[in-house]
């Protein structure tokens, strides 16, 4: 199912990635998989598929490092230890007007 241009069908890509063909098409439309549409059929670049299967990071390491640096900098400056669940609960109650069940 590989053509001369290094393309494979979306169905074949789905099989190799253990995805549904719908998930592969969605990733192609979102640009998360490289490929092209020929007629009414999607094709995936086999080289890109190999990168996917190699286990490359979804979140780029440089982004994680940037996030770590910002988080650590805020902690060093303020010494604050936050409570993410409480923060989001407060947002849901005060900004979205949600109330505790049973109130």
């Amino acid at each position: 199912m590989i053509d001369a241009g290094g393309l494979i069908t979306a169905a074949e890509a789905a099989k190799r990635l253990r995805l549904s063909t719908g998930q592969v098409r969605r990733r192609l439309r979102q640009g998360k998989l490289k490929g092209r549409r020929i007629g009414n059929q999607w094709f995936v670049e086999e080289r890109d598929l190999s990168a996917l299967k190699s286990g490359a990071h979804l979140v780029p390491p440089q982004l994680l490092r940037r996030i770590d640096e910002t988080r650590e900098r805020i902690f060093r400056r303020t010494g604050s230890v936050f409570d993410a669940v409480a923060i989001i609960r407060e947002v849901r109650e005060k900004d979205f007007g949600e109330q505790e069940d049973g109130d």
Partner: protein
Amino acid sequence: MTTWCVDANVVIAILLNEPASDAARRFWAGLTQADEVVGPYVLLPECTSALRRKVLDGSVSEAEGLELIDELLALPIRIETSAEQFRRSLDWAIRTRRRRMNDLQYVVVAQISGAEIVTLDGGVRQAALEQGVAVRFLR
């Protein structure tokens, strides 16, 4: 491939220092290109409001708030935009007479996407389990 539906608290936990930050970081760092992260439409407004609150109470500076929003927006999260998430969440809230619907939207998006939900919140965990949605609880 695994699809993960992230609760807003898992996003905030990697951005701000909290007891579960290490667990949240391990989750984000462990994702590969074979994973997909999704969130309901309400995810970004919730996270933005959370950061706004922290800037307003002075625990995060304005400049840091802007850095954090850029980092939030750089995370590879697919926002589910289908109307189905609202219909199903409302139907569920009405049937069970719940006053809180944001939690339900996370669970519904997990169902729509065939995702496992990732949360730090015991209430969201419970709601997901009631619906037969798999949960990764990071606490």
